[in-house]
């Protein structure tokens, strides 16, 4: 059940009306939300519901036990935290990586001509598992670091884990910001409601007028790369990065908006990544709920332990950090090398940082727009290239795609391209305009304009544009597979 479907809105109305009208306290509201979340998740994949309930109970207990031992028996608290992390990673490993691991081992044994009886497994990966296991692990680590107090209310905790707008595909919420919101009764707020609806509308616009319009064409190019020339592949790389952004940012906006309508604020996921001036900056603006999670719990931990290695410690931690981000997406060598590629880029960016600053000072480039935009273009190109690797189904696919580049430029593959030009390009222009405006001047913003009539007309036009130009026979979200 995706947000841009009639079924979802029927479900949402059935949840929302009693949520605000029937419950006098936060307890009832949370219980209702928990039930709704389980129904929602069960709708997507009921077989995994018992697992979700079980891990919720276990991590709830772990949280309390860690806090209890934090000062009395610090070693035991550490052990319990490790147990939580191992459990979270274990579930993730079993469902996400075990099949891949067995297949690769079998291939290795065969290559070394060792006898083995390993068979490929076919483990169905439950939707959303990468998202809720990260929430759970983050929770126990935060409790151990004493940045949060564990909750005693299991319904509250269960709601945090299974919260239906975010369980399928994030944003990955932090207990520290989410749980306190559940500890109070939410009242219907006009501002929250309207702001939530606007974000849902913007999300639909991104998803249906850009991502889904581009998708058939990029699929046609990357799916049959052997038949395409360098021009088509380069254009597809650029469009695929835009598709990836609008697809996932669109989902996140809808999730954030739906939560907001219920009076809950969840983590932001994107902060205008295409306005980033270098690779590090881009990663701070892209899938932020994941990158901050991994930065806080993987990068910092590593970096602290390796702090006596000086610069090299930072480099190693950076590389590992990006590889973890890459591999988080799934069990495939493409994601591993995607991580390595970005890790190396990031190491290069960091090591050149001082020189760049000096250079900028010497040439007075700080406010030079041409310089700023060339940096943006360069950053975008690095990510567009990386997105080819990200999109490839295997390394041989990726190398095959690259091998098409020296074949030379020629005419662009234009089958069905007119719909991209007519529908997606104006929408992309609007997105860039909005992000550029937000980056420089915060006041021009058509959905949030000062004049009421500008807001109303913008909303009406946007709804009409989605209906007329959007891809309505919906496609799934890219990030549902992760």
């Amino acid at each position: 059940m995706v947000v841009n479907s009639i079924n979802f809105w029927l479900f949402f109305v059935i949840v929302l009306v009693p949520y605000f009208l029937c419950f006098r306290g936060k307890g009832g509201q949370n219980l209702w939300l928990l039930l709704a979340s389980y129904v929602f998740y069960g709708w997507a994949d009921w077989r995994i519901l018992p697992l979700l309930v079980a891990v919720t109970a276990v991590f709830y207990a772990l949280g309390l036990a860690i806090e209890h031992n934090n000062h009395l028996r610090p070693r035991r608290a550490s052990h319990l935290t490790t147990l939580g992390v191992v459990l979270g990673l274990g579930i993730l490993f079993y469902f996400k990586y075990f099949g891949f691991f067995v297949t690769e081992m079998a291939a290795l044994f065969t290559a070394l001509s060792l006898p083995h009886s390993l068979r490929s497994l076919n483990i169905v990966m439950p939707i959303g598992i990468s998202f809720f296991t990260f929430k759970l692990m983050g929770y126990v680590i935060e409790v151990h670091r004493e940045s949060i107090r564990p909750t005693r209310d299991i319904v509250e905790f269960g709601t945090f884990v299974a919260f239906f707008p975010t369980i399928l595909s994030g944003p990955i919420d932090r207990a520290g910001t989410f749980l306190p919101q559940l500890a109070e009764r939410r009242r219907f707020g006009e501002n929250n409601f309207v702001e939530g609806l606007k974000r849902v509308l913007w999300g639909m616009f991104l998803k249906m007028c850009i991502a889904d319009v581009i998708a058939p064409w990029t699929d046609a190019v990357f799916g049959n790369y052997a038949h395409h020339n360098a021009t088509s592949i380069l254009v597809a790389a650029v469009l695929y990065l835009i598709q990836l952004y609008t697809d996932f940012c669109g989902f996140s906006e809808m999730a954030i908006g739906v939560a907001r309508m219920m009076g809950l604020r969840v983590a932001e996921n994107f902060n205008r990544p295409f306005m980033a001036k270098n690779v590090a900056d881009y990663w701070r603006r892209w899938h932020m709920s994941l990158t901050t999670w991994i930065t806080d719990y993987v990068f910092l931990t590593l970096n602290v332990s390796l702090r006596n290695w000086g610069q090299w410690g930072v480099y190693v931690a950076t590389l590992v950090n990006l590889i973890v981000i890459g591999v988080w997406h799934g069990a495939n060598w493409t994601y591993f090398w995607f991580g390595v590629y970005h890790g190396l880029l990031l190491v290069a960016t960091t090591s050149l940082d001082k020189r760049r600053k000096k250079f900028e000072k010497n040439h007075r480039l700080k406010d030079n727009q041409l310089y700023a935009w060339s940096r943006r273009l360069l950053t975008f190109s690095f990510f567009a290239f990386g997105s080819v690797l990200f999109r490839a189904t295997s390394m041989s696919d990726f190398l095959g795609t690259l091998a098409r580049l020296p074949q030379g430029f020629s005419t662009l593959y234009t089958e069905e391209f007119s719909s991209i030009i007519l529908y997606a390009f104006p929408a992309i222009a609007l997105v860039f305009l909005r992000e550029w405006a937000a980056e420089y001047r915060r006041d021009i913003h058509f959905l949030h304009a000062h004049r009421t009539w500008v807001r109303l007309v913008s909303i009406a036009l946007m709804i009409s544009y989605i209906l007329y130009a959007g891809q309505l026979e919906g496609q799934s979200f890219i990030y549902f597979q992760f």
Partner: protein
Amino acid sequence: MERTEIFERLNEIFADVLDLDDVSLTDATTANDIEEWDSLSHIPLVVAVEKAFGVKFTSLEIMKWSNVGEMVNSILQKQP
């Protein structure tokens, strides 16, 4: 060493590591208040602080700090 002295030393260290002209830290200062203080520059800061005060923090201690004040508490605790 007094708290105020520690803050003075810290101001120097921060200005040096983060390449800033002037830093004035308080108990409540966090990484959000200083633009240059991010996840990448955090560790060089910690290393510089350890060196300057001749102390060694545990990983968990470092993770638990939520502002400069708590960092100063750790330094005071460790000082002979």
